[in-house]
């Protein structure tokens, strides 16, 4: 609470000294619990949920079938070729890793910075992180030629007495992504524990009571529990924070450490992190807008939350735009003919459509968020967020494919054309992502019940019991 007050002076002093409430409606502790737990406890989810999970489940099955086909046949079922030995596999990997950034950023960094508006979106955003990491982690595992030996990437003791090659950025990747996945999962799960206990206590069937109870780890809500919970949460937040920055930095090393013109640039780590936060927030907006409508959480996930995220999108989008300009400047200023060509080729070569579409989506589209009506309008913000998602996918395509198709020797230049297997595998990862998300919405509390209660006006020590909350909720 205090952090908010320090950062943001109250605009309308006449109303109260503290800023407007983060939740809307006539909310008290009980209503928040009812509202959030009610989603899970409904005997049947809304019809839209069934429709959505049918589509996403089908796509997931498509994904699994195509992965099986890939393993049985070979990487050649994709469009990868020489010189584009990496294609959509790595594009999609980086895309999903980027998406996976928002959750932990919201949970950890905003937590440490005392940005309390994060409370009602952090749970869903963290879940998205995990599911995006699932999709991202799938690609490096299946894109290798001999999938059955992919475990050689890990430093497991073996009869060959072989370590992996610690000089290879791909190995750093393995560590970075797996650490990130582990810490994100822990962080998410730990935050869930009090809410799981709430669900356990409200459960009406023995099975639910058992399952929620099992995962609630015997939470009783004692002061000692709360004390340890909050300490541990803080520690994990502190641990996760550098990971948010490191994981995409390391992913960017895959490119920056190589000598492919267009990859070999030192700007990549910050540029990738900014891009990842950018795409992650865009994905959260894309998903939370329909989800809050669908599950009746409009009063907990308010337009103000969305607006804040849009501000982050605007900021990171501008950072990404700056990075694009810097790349060109350095390509010219550095005087390396191959690098200069690589960037000219992006903008003017055979894939220039991808480049300019990317610039429109990533640099131009977020600028509309300067307008409050766009920032707070549900449809405009979803439109921009989707454009950003498209743009960030294109950015990875531009970096991976355009650079590879025209490197040093003109005689080995080539073209990349995706196959249908590429397209449907990518669609399948969306299926997996949404299936997991829909299951999450159905069976776990989408909003952190316990945390939201702390930002209710009722929880404020200076608030007159009930009255202040009501007043500010209507403000």
């Amino acid at each position, binding site marked *: 609470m205090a952090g908010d007050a320090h950062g943001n002076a109250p605009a309308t002093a006449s109303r109260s000294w503290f800023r407007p409430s983060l939740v809307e409606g006539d909310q008290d502790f009980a209503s928040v619990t009812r509202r959030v737990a009610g989603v899970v406890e409904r005997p049947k989810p809304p019809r839209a949920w069934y429709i959505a999970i049918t589509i996403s489940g089908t796509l997931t099955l498509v994904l699994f079938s195509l992965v099986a086909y890939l393993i049985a046949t070979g*990487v050649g079922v994709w469009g990868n070729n020489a010189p584009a030995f990496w294609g959509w596999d790595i594009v999609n990997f980086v895309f999903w890793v980027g998406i996976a950034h928002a959750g932990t950023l919201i949970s950890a960094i905003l937590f440490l910075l005392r940005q309390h508006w994060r409370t009602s979106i952090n749970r869903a955003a963290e879940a998205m992180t995990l599911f995006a990491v699932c999709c991202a982690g799938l690609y490096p595992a299946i894109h290798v*030629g001999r999938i059955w*030996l992919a475990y050689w990437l890990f430093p497991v003791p073996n009869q060959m007495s072989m370590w992996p090659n610690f000089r290879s950025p791909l190995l750093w990747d393995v560590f970075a992504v797996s650490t990130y996945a582990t810490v994100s999962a822990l962080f998410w799960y730990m935050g869930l524990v009090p809410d799981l206990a709430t669900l356990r206590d409200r459960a009406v069937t023995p099975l639910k009571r058992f399952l929620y109870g099992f995962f609630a780890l015997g939470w009783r809500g004692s002061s000692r529990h709360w004390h340890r919970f909050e300490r541990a949460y803080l520690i994990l937040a502190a641990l996760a924070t550098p990971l948010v920055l490191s994981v995409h930095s390391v992913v960017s090393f895959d490119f920056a450490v*190589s000598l*492919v013109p267009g990859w070999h640039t030192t700007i990549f780590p910050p540029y990738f992190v900014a891009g990842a936060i950018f795409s992650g927030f865009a994905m959260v907006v894309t998903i939370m807008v329909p989800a809050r409508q669908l599950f009746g959480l409009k009063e907990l996930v308010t337009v103000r939350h969305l607006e804040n995220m849009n501000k982050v999108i605007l900021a990171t989008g501008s950072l990404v735009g700056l990075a694009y300009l810097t790349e060109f400047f350095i390509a010219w200023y550095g005087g390396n003919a*191959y690098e200069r*060509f690589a960037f000219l*080729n992006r903008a003017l070569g055979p894939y220039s459509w991808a480049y300019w579409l990317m610039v429109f989506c990533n640099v131009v589209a977020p600028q509309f968020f300067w307008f409050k009506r766009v920032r707070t309008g549900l449809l405009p913000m979803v439109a921009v967020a989707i454009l950003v998602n498209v743009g960030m996918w294109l950015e990875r395509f531009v970096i991976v494919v355009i650079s590879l198709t025209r490197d040093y*020797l003109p*005689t080995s230049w080539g073209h990349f054309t995706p196959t249908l297997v590429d397209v449907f595998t990518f669609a399948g990862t969306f299926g997996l992502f949404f299936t997991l998300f829909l299951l999450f919405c159905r069976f776990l509390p989408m909003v952190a019940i316990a945390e939201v209660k702390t930002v209710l006006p009722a929880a404020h020590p200076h608030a007159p019991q009930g009255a202040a909350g009501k007043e500010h909720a209507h403000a």
Partner: protein
Amino acid sequence: MSPLSPNEPRSPDGMSDLSRRRFMQVMGASFALATASGCRWEGEEILPFAQRPTGRVPGTTRRFASALDLGGGTIASLLVTSYDGRPIKIEGNPLHPLDAGAASARAQAAILDLYDPDHSSGLVQRHEGADYPRTWKEFDPWFAARMEAARTRGGAGLAVLAAPSSSRTRAALQKRFAAAFPAARWVEWTPVARTNEVEGARLAYGRPLRTHLRIENARTLVCLDADPIGEHPAALANARAFARRRNPEAETMLRTWAVESTPTLSGAAADHRLALRAEQIQPLIQALEHRVKGILGGSSSGPLSPTGTSPAGGFLAEPRVAQLLESLARELAERRGESLVVAGPRQPGLVHAIVQRLNAVLGNTGRTLVLTEEPDDVPRDPAAALGELVRAMDAGEVTELVVLGGNPVYDAPADLDLRRALRKAPLSIHLGTTRDETARACTWHLPRAHELECFGDARSWDGTLCTIQPLIAPIYERRSEIELVAAMLGAKETARELVRAAVAPDIDDAGWNKVLHDGFVAGSALVPVDAAIMSFDVPAATARALEASVANGRLELVLAPDSKLYDGRGANNAWLQELPDALTQTTWGNAARFSPATARAFGIVDGTLVRLRANGRELVCAAIIVPGNADGSVTLHLGYGRAAAGLVGGLPGEGVESVGFDAYRLRGMNALDGALDLAVELAGGTHALARTTDPHVDDEIGKHGYEERIGELLREATLASWRADPELEAHAPHHPPLESLWEREEPAGARWGMAIDLNSCTGCNACVVACQAENNVPVVGREQVMRGREMHWIRIDRHFLGEEGLERVRFQPITCQHCESAPCEQVCPVAATVHSAEGLNDMIYNRCIGTRYCANNCPFKVRRFNFFNYHKAVERQGAEVQRMIFNPEVTIRARGVMEKCTFCVQRIQAAKIQAKNAGRALKDGEVVPACAQTCPTSAIVFGDLADPASRVSRMRAAPRAYEMLAELNIRPRTSYLARITNPAAEESAHGG
């Protein structure tokens, strides 16, 4: 009547209507027989190697000399490597005076044919549209009786249609045939004959003479639509001599002028190149001869004289052509006795005659070219004899036709309907390696033995008699041509005896063994003869030849044998099909070559389907734009569009699409080399061309980037500028000093390295096939090539440089550069590619998991990935024969792993072991990778960089040596030696 009267044909599989009881009887007998004589090594006693035969070391390879007739007078003298009794690799015979250890791509690929699953494995009788398998046991007595009957008729009704052969054995048998069957016909047909050249000699000297080039004695070489280093029976020897004379370090350097209708290897190697239609060569050579005579006669200046027989005007008046003619004429006159003018095989006899006369006037004859008698019987009109045979067959005069090799149903002129004529003959027997078009049109097909399975002989271009010896008993029951002709004659001698009697009748056993060992009869080359030029009429050049024309109906069509498939015989050879054409980089198919201007005139882009009309026939085929092609001239290569080549080259009847377009359908009896009435129209649609390393870039930015960097990657200079700047500093990229973070340790021992002389490389592709055979490189097929997934470990990049009309063609072989600071090694997460102590960039296949990061990080893109299991076809049951081709020293790579050039590490190890066993150090030149071994011009040199005296060290230290992309601090172990051109002095320089 014969026992195999078609009245009682068996069921096709010979088994389907058996009762169970009968089946048991048959099988019982078969099992008994199988134990008694169930192997193909008939007539040989099989004994266990309780005592090792002399000279045989288990697990080591043995090498045997042999030879191969590649058609068109080209004889490859071979040294064939055999492992455990199976031939696995063909190399050139180092003792042979012409080949000297080199072998062409086609010769080397022939080993794949030996194990071709489409290679016929049994006899087939065709009766009323159904095929019946037969055996030699059934065939032999029946055939003998049939021949006996023919003999009593004096051979009337019997005809033999054979491919021409230089074999003395066959010539001897042919003589006996003529005696035994006096009334029989013996007709020879080959689609690509040396008719024009011999006709030229007849005109010039009054008799057929063979011209042997002595490029080593020349200072100026003029190629008129000719490709002496590519398409020539002695191309390997010519290329070797050519490369030696192109050494810029030597005192004098050969200068080459090429005038040609479509780019060839010789044109690419030339210092001055001019694209003219093939029909324009005649006026050009007339004008040149006239001018040379004028200069020699004293008129040292002045324009081309319009008087006399010299044509003038038209294209000859174009400044570019006129200037070239003038400076060329001056140079020829100046370098009398040191120049050499060569005309190409598709130029008419008259042009060849004028060239002979010009060479004589210049005093070249006897110095830069040598004449010998023509040992082959080259017909003046090859199609006429075939036409006469077809007429006789149509008239029912032929009752028995024996087709000895060749594939006339496919490659006969389109106006001869041989297929229909064959239906008129009651009995037609085809001896061939596969069930090709001709086999399917004949009543009998007999499987023909591969050259590595039988005895034979051939005469190489210089006349040296080469022996062909079997390295393996026929894998199936296959017989050679000699054996079949002997069977027709009822001869009792074996092929071995026949060959020995014909090739070396007066030699004792030891001498004969030496002949077989060497692969040829020493000292049997033809003897040079002197001949005087006779006078002959030269008709005036036609007006149309002088004009530039891209008008429809007046275009020129050139039909040439293909550099890979030749006349179509290589169509079922997957190595050849997947070999990129040197000039167009096209695999798996041919396309009509258009110049950029001609293509623009018709709205053609690469792959456009066009309808070609010529000689009253038409063909729809793909077009390809070839910079440096002559405007108004369209070249299409023969050998494609096979209707029954096999599973590789096409078998439309069984659902295998045929590869490429059949140019023979445009060929008439009187128009074998092309036509002058070609009309082109768009046929609608496109045909995707499978091209490999094509630097063509359609967009402006790509062209800009290409031009910006190519001078650094592919360095070249003129002789004059190189002498002024021997280090070629002007071409070197500027970069900061290259430093390392670490102290570099140079381990003791060898430091393997390679040097490639761009001045010597002719782009002949021999190294690509050599590598494929040595390293078990898989073939991936057309679709995979189009996806950029070809697997060749060494590739030859082809560049068209310079503006339109003045294109220079450049080749650059590229393989793994074995960088000392290899970017691929650093990024592999599982350490599957590492450095050896001797500096090899090793690839550990069974460690590789296939992240492909190494290939992304390779600046040369020489790494190849197994996107699929490319060996699936040979892993299945029943492919045991196909698997015999593999080199056991090289791992077969699995799906999902990366592979690349190893500098032939297996050869390095073999040489090291040999040296160690002998207790001595390795000598320079002992380790020869497959590419370097076969290079006809020795452009690729391999060796130890730690030894400053080694050839490779000296080449690397040469001023014109450079390492590609060395500015990336990758420290490549492969050096390139810049190409030095030798154009005429600046004031008269033009044409590139």
